[in-house]
């Protein structure tokens, strides 16, 4: 029977199976992961809050359920890192910001509730770029997380904490949110599977909003099947979220188990390549294209001309929505309050609090958004960006006439160094180049590992994009790529992550 570190390298599917079969208890599994966190998180800093008591209680409940002969869900007892942007009644929710430091929500997010109902064991809340704005976790008010492949590098963002946790074997599952690429890009630079489901596929009730029309909760995992299981667990209509889809959840688990791509039409997006893309990334990407062709897929090149405008359109739409969404943080009802000395006015206290409580990137985006929505500027900026959005949707529609899925690199480079882009917003924004179009169009998109860059030995992600509500296609293609690469490699990719070797002394050794 596996124990200790052996438990932490298992997939979610395998873990759930062992628990259901009674070969290991959920409590043991939870303990093993909590131990792993205790040893490694001082280096990885994936978690803002670890909740051992509530995690063990949840694990105990699963064990009791099993003992009582009640049926267990497919993820019962599996530990998970929850991005600190979701409300939880028994853990603080900070969104990586000082302005919400210690905030204890009085309600669970719908997604939180679904995880609990599924018997998932939430180990704690993971680090993130403040209010989901960033691509590295360097915008977290509580310090960046580190990439288990190289602790001097970023784990991507904004869901970098969840990615780091899963890549460091602190949990087999993570939940992130993807507004401009914030699940897929961390997945790519950490060697994980990360999925942005179709917008509206998973409830946003209790997800602290950054950009309402773009925010999408999604899974992070080490395998395509694990991601599929989590995808199904969190998806489905929620009457508390007006933008949630009232449609059947795409059958992604079945698709993950049927990785047949023969005859599938795969479009390589012309615009998502070229200058600015690291050669190592392009090398692995082209290999992935060849791999898919060798499996029987029909590769074509597809042009989506307006994708070149996706980045500027996104950096108008998202800040506009966020400038409004973050207005509620004003020191009046919850959160930080600064400057209330008895003589300052409410307006002054609001301004002093927001100045002290928000980081630089958040302030930049708030002001950018305020600008774009201003009278006299609305048409030229926000209005225009929304038109570009329409054109991007049309580009996708045309592209999906010619192809069943589209592919591209997930992000132009491998994990960059901590501090390298910290005060260069434009350079940081470029990390989202490939991922943003799917956020604007709302269609499903996945990053799956496609090898390590020869130059630096760091993970490269392959992005797969499918039409709205065709999330299953992602898993079909992703699982196919994963199967071939795993087989060629002979071992799971993550066992090659060396970042924690000297630090923790025992990374993936037991995985072989």
């Amino acid at each position: 029977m596996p124990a200790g570190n052996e438990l932490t390298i298992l997939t979610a599917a395998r873990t759930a199976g062992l628990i259901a079969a009674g070969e290991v208890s959920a409590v043991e599994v939870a303990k093993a992961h909590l131990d792993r966190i205790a040893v490694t998180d001082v280096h990885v800093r994936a978690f803002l809050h670890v909740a051992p008591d509530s995690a063990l209680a949840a694990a105990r409940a699963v064990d009791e359920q099993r003992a009582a002969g009640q049926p267990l869900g497919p993820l019962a007892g599996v530990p998970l890192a929850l991005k600190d942007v979701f409300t939880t009644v028994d853990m603080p929710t900070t969104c990586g910001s000082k302005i919400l430091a210690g905030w204890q929500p009085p309600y669970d997010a719908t997604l939180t509730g679904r995880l609990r109902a599924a018997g998932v064991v939430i180990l704690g809340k993971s680090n993130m770029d403040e209010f989901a704005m960033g691509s590295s976790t360097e915008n977290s008010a509580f310090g960046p997380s580190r990439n288990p492949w190289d602790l001097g590098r970023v784990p991507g963002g904004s869901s970098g904490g969840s990615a780091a946790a899963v890549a460091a074997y602190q949990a087999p599952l993570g939940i992130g949110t993807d507004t401009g690429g914030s699940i897929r890009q961390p997945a790519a630079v950490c060697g994980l599977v990360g999925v942005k489901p179709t917008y509206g596929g998973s409830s946003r009730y209790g997800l602290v909003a950054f950009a309402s029309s773009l925010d999408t909760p999604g899974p992070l995992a080490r395998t395509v099947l694990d991601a599929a299981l989590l995808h199904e667990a969190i998806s489905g209509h929620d009457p508390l979220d007006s933008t949630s889809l009232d449609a059947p959840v795409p059958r992604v688990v079945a698709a993950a188990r049927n990785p047949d791509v023969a005859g599938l039409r795969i479009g390589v997006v012309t615009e998502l390549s070229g200058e600015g893309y690291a050669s190592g990334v392009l090398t692995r990407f082209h290999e992935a294209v060849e791999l898919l062709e060798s499996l029987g897929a029909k590769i074509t090149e597809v042009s989506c001309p307006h994708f070149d405008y996706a980045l500027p359109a996104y950096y108008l739409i998202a800040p506009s929505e966020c400038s409004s969404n973050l207005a509620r943080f004003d020191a009046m009802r919850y959160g930080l309050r600064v400057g209330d000395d008895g003589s300052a006015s409410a307006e002054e206290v609001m301004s002093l609090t927001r100045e002290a409580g928000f980081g630089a990137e958040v302030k930049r985006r708030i002001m950018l958004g305020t600008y774009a929505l201003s009278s006299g500027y609305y048409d030229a900026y926000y209005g225009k960006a929304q038109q570009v959005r329409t054109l991007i949707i049309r580009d996708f529609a045309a592209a999906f006439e010619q192809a069943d899925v589209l592919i591209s690199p997930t992000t132009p480079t491998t994990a960059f160094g901590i501090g390298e882009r910290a005060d260069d917003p434009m350079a940081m924004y470029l990390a989202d180049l490939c991922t943003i179009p799917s956020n604007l169009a709302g269609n499903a998109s996945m990053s799956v590992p496609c090898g390590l860059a020869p130059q630096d030995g760091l993970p490269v992600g392959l992005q797969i994009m499918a039409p709205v509500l065709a999330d299953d296609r992602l898993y079909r293609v992703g699982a196919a790529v994963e199967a071939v690469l795993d087989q060629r490699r002979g071992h799971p990719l993550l066992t090659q992550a060396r970042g924690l070797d000297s630090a923790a002394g025992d990374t993936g050794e037991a995985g072989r």
Partner: protein
Amino acid sequence: MSSAATAAGAAVQVPFDEAVTRYEPVIGIETHVELGTAAKMFCGCPTLFGTEPNSAVCPVCLGLPGSLPVINKAAIEYTITIGLALNCSIASWCRFARKNYFYPDMPKNYQISQYDEPLCTDGWLDVEIGDQVVRVGIERVHLEEDTGKSLHVGGATGRIHGADYSLVDYNRAGIPLVEVVTKPIPGTGALAPVVARAYVTELRDLLRALGVSDVRMEQGSLRCDVNTSIAPGGAAQWGTRTETKNVNSLRSVERAVRSEIERQAGVLDAGGRVVQETRHFHEDTGRTTPGRSKEEAQDYRYFPEPDLVPVAPAPEWVRRIAAGLPELPAARRARLRAEWGLSVLDMTALVNAGALDLVAETVAAGASPEQARNWWLTELSRRANEAGLELGALAVSTEQVARICALVDSGELNNKLARQVLDGVLAGEGSPDEVVAARGLAVVTDSAVLAAAVDDAIAANPDVAAKIRDGKIAAAGALVGAVMRATGGQADAASVRELILARCGADSR
């Protein structure tokens, strides 16, 4: 520019009657109506008035991080109902928008409202002023959420100015609010204040008839802002308008318009310019003062609400709502006026006295329109005035008034007795029949009793009787009086006169 125009506050007013001879006013009214739905606009919290502070809030109406709005279907239905009753076009597709500004009584620091896509547009409401009908254009009817309420602590007047801090209750935050905006109303001249008041009154009555709100201005479920501008008579363009808030009663609507016309005339007479601003109406002085001056007009940065999806009312749904509209007050008044055969002026008098519904109910309970009107406008109005009560607050029901009328019709009561019965009912002695029985107030019809009384009167007044016998019929009056006194007024005077004449052997011709 004269010093009068530049002096703050106490600028010279031009008396209203004079002002309207030289200036033509244009008015506009924005009315906010709290809907009487069970739940709030975007969540399931209750909309009750007067509960413990912050007891009717949830993550949504408190604007907690992560919360999301979901549109209350009844609020949409009520708004469409209002729009149809105001003869508006109902949008086939529209959206909510965010109106962004910071204020502590707004939990999200934006209000979910409607901007350039209101649910209803381009309607009208006819307002009767005497025998004139003014058609007030309705620009739009849209839906939004109400804000919380603040108590300002520490200042002298309980208002913001001079307060040390404020206490906020969010129970009201999120209650559905319908905003009805008129088109500008020109051409009312001296009647502008009256038209404004009449419009708000008619709108209030219409909303009440629709059952969509309890429309109580004193409780804040109906709020008005009045816009006023004036221009020199014959001018090609309208003047600059001001917006007056804190207009909390129908009377204040009239006074606020009046006051603004006087003030603006004073400004223009002195060669100054009316400043486009928001002003605050003061009940005590009947005047307006400027709101805190803002550096520039507020830029609300409206954009379509991304947490909501569009509203596209199905034509079938709108048809069903239209078919279900109740009889509106104007139509009802016209119908009753025709049924009762009243002149416009008489009808207006009824309405102004607040007696229309009471009369209608009394008629429905069996009285004739004449009787009902008569009782309510004379006897009952008098008693209401004496007691300092509204007509409807008198301790007599319309059924009871109808019963009294019926008793007079049947001859069981004469008018004098009827008034005594009314007194008894108002005093709480019971129903009209119970009062009649208890006080013995029925008209005496027993011929033996009457005959005896007549004989007594004749015997006591032989000289009068003699005159009657000699043909002086008019002398019978004194004997009638005597018999009425003897019977405590409970005889029918006409019958008594006939009896007397017969007894005296005189011709009652």
